[in-house]
């Protein structure tokens, strides 16, 4: 089985550090090292690091690079060296293909970080849409290993490797040198904590991982990553949203900038903004003992009203859930969630569960 799975360049290092490796969309990645809860706590209180080398990197280059990005993305980007932003990529109907973070390298080059499971699909989509633009789209994912370093103490710790790291603004990118290799550092993350994500060669990122292990940066797996992102109310592309959902339905309407120039899906989204949506991605907490899971159905007065797309156990908030439910369901409303044939009481809460400190 394993020979069909891809390994990141940090595979050996993760195994050596005690990583319990699992198949994640065709990649062998650590689901946990010591314990998901211990890793979660390290990121909230101190510092943790995640192998995210499976993520994709795509470059838009050419005179129309900016124009093209504005056309394929819903958010409104700026031409300012180093500046990045989060956005959705949607189809003509406004359905979400993926979420991305794109950074301006210069006015003719944008660096786009995409999800691993959707990377090939995104790349094919961009290639097809680029035909009428003076832009070259290239998938450079194989060139980069990537480590996400997250937590309130991460920047202090990394100051030893890059004394200017704290000057990097939130959602900006910069080039730097670490262990003699060139790296790209972005002040971004998926945990709700401050931190950076660092991309570089396999050799450099392996050196960084090894350095982190000896500098109180705890290796963390996908389990902690999923828990941290759900606490922070971040969507998991392909799981919490896909082409059957629009950014409005995904409770992410702020990434749609209808007042910018034309972009793919704009007409459909403008129409939906006017008519409104019937279901939105909403948060719930169980008020009775139990843990709900992805796929569980939501009921109110014995009527099925929705379903969960993500749910787990948080050491802080206990059984947390998120899924699609009627947009008119008020905060505090009591619902029931069916877990293995048993209905458990839950209440709707305002997302996120954890207010990030960034």
């Amino acid at each position, binding site marked *: 089985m394993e020979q069909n799975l891809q390994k990141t360049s940090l595979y050996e290092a993760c195994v050596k550090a005690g990583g319990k490796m699992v198949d994640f969309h065709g990649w062998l990645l650590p*689901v946990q090292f010591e*314990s*998901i*809860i211990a890793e979660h706590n390290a990121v909230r209180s101190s510092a943790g690091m995640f192998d995210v080398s499976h993520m994709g990197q795509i470059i838009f280059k050419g005179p129309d690079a900016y124009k093209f990005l504005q056309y394929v993305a819903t958010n409104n980007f700026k031409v300012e060296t180093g500046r990045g932003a989060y956005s959705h990529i949607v189809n003509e109907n406004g359905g979400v293909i993926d979420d991305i973070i794109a950074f301006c390298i210069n006015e003719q080059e944008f660096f786009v970080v995409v999800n691993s499971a959707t990377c090939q699909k995104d790349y094919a989509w961009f290639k097809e849409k680029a035909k009428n633009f003076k832009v070259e789209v290239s998938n450079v994912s194989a060139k980069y290993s990537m480590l996400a370093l997250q937590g309130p103490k991460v920047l202090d710790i990394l100051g030893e490797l890059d004394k200017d790291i704290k000057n990097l603004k939130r959602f900006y990118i910069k080039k730097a040198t670490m262990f003699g290799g060139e790296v790209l550092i972005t002040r971004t993350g998926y945990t709700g904590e401050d931190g950076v994500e660092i991309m570089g060669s396999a050799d450099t990122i392996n050196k960084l991982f090894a350095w982190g292990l000896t500098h109180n940066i705890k290796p963390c797996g996908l389990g902690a990553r999923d828990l941290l992102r759900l606490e922070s109310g971040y969507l998991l592309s392909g799981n919490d949203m896909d082409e059957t959902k629009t950014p409005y339905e995904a409770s992410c309407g702020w990434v749609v900038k209808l007042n910018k120039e034309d972009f793919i899906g704009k007409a459909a989204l403008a129409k939906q903004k006017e008519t409104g949506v019937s279901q939105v991605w909403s948060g719930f907490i169980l008020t009775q*003992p139990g*843990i709900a*899971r992805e796929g569980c159905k939501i009921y109110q007065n014995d009527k099925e009203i929705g379903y969960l797309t993500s749910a787990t156990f948080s050491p802080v908030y206990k*059984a947390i859930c998120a899924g699609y439910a009627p947009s008119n369901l008020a905060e505090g409303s009591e619902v029931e969630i069916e877990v*293995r044939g048993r209905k458990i009481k839950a209440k709707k809460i305002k997302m996120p569960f954890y207010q990030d400190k960034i």
Partner: protein
Amino acid sequence: MYNQEKCKFSKTHEWAFVEGDTAVCGISDHAQHEISDIVFVELPKVGAKVEAGKSCAVIESVKSAADFYAPLSGEVIQVNENLNGNPALINQAPHGDGWIFKIKISNAKEEENLLSFDAYKATL
């Protein structure tokens, strides 16, 4: 408390500590380690009939839910209420304070289907 060398094991990683016509049941150290961070246990009710090999409790970690299959058939006469407040007891002492329930055995012959500690270890 329930010395693993004196327990009988199922292939699905449950143990039974048999004393007369009763048995205390729990999960093996290997199983608690594999499940990791146990955060919730759905216990059977006292008086419930459990059947060997059938799911009768659920052990949940942050990541997933695992069925607990009764190692022997019988009637539940006691459950470990402490697990409601502190399910991590199973991680800390799977053969001690992390026991799950106690049954009155209904079919003593089923014990023959279980493995000794050494035989169980050999399956891991």
